[in-house]
């Protein structure tokens, strides 16, 4: 299955971006093979409004069934919940570590937004 993780870099060793809507990039990881693709989120990062919704669209378009980020805002939460994407927040330092925790089942599913918009 495919999962999405926010990042400031370009690979599995890169840091997790604490922001979702204004994350620099999304990494889409296939948890069966560990193959990954990078999705640029520059448009969302620069958006005045609605960045979370735009990023949520990108997650859904990539076919990910789960999202890992540092935090998640209210609009993104509504959008991802409607699409059935499960959301996890983490303090993992790298994408690789976040994915490892996801696979081990040690991440807690977010049941609400944990930050306000434009935090």
């Amino acid at each position: 299955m495919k999962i999405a993780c926010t990042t400031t870099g370009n690979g599995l060793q890169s840091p997790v971006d604490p922001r979702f809507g204004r994350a620099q990039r999304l990494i889409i990881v296939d948890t069966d093979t560990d193959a990954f693709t990078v999705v640029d989120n520059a448009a969302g990062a620069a958006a005045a409004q609605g960045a979370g919704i735009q990023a949520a669209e990108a997650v859904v378009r990539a076919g990910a069934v789960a999202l890992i980020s540092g935090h998640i805002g209210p609009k993104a939460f509504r959008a991802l919940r409607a699409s059935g994407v499960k959301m996890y927040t983490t303090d993992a330092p790298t994408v690789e570590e976040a994915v490892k925790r996801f696979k081990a089942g040690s991440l807690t599913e977010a049941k609400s937004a944990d930050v306000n918009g434009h935090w």
Partner: protein
Amino acid sequence: MIIAVASGKGGTGKTTVAVNLARSLAGPVHLFDCDVEEPNANLFLHGAVERTDEVTLPVPAVDAAKCNGCNECGRLCQYHAIASFGSQALVFSELCHGCGGCMLVCPRGAITETPRRIGVLETARSGDITIVTGRIDVGVAFAPPLIRAVKGRIGSGVTAILDAPPGTSCPVIATVTGADAVILVTEPTPFGLHDLTLAVETVRELGVPFGVVVNRVGMGDGRVHAYCAKEGIPVLLDIPDDRRIAEAYSSGRLLVEALPEYRTLFTGLWQAVGELAAKKGRATEVAR
């Protein structure tokens, strides 16, 4: 005649010019405070508010029984105010600009419009001056729809002064569009000059005749005047850098009332803007 008072830089004296100009006209005048995020004209005119009207924006409501999640609405909306995520369309009404496009493109007729309050219009009267103030609600992120509602109150044939927000972005464009003349208020400082040049480019693009009022003349330097001379921009008025003007302002008094010797400055400004507005009339005739 519709006169807009704008500026690039904030705090140059737009409201000072607008309210004193309003008070200096013999006869009825309407003043429209289009700086809806921080309206302040009535602080100087002390008009009693006679009525308050709510302003709403039409935002979409989705009929769950009809929506099949095709996302035609989401593809149209540039503001991500409505989108389907493989689900029924979700509405983020705080992002909606009220264009109605989603309703038009929905192939299943699942979208209707519902009003969302964005602010109020307050109408007040102070002598011959009718003041219409737009006041945006806290948390509403964009001003142009409310500014258009303020301007919707401009009756035909009235003399109208529009007090614009600072800057050169959408709220200023929304205010200045359709005016017969624009007064750009600046100060004789490098910052004032820099933002004046941005405002000049904006107003030129809109094709409205304009002139400059330089406030606090005596401080700063002569570069604003040199720039205006070079660009062929009329300087309509110099307001001197007089501490007593600031004192009157800080206690909510009008300059033309606290310091009657300055009255002629504003009667002269009426004359100058009248000539500018006539220029627009002539340009329109030529275009025909």
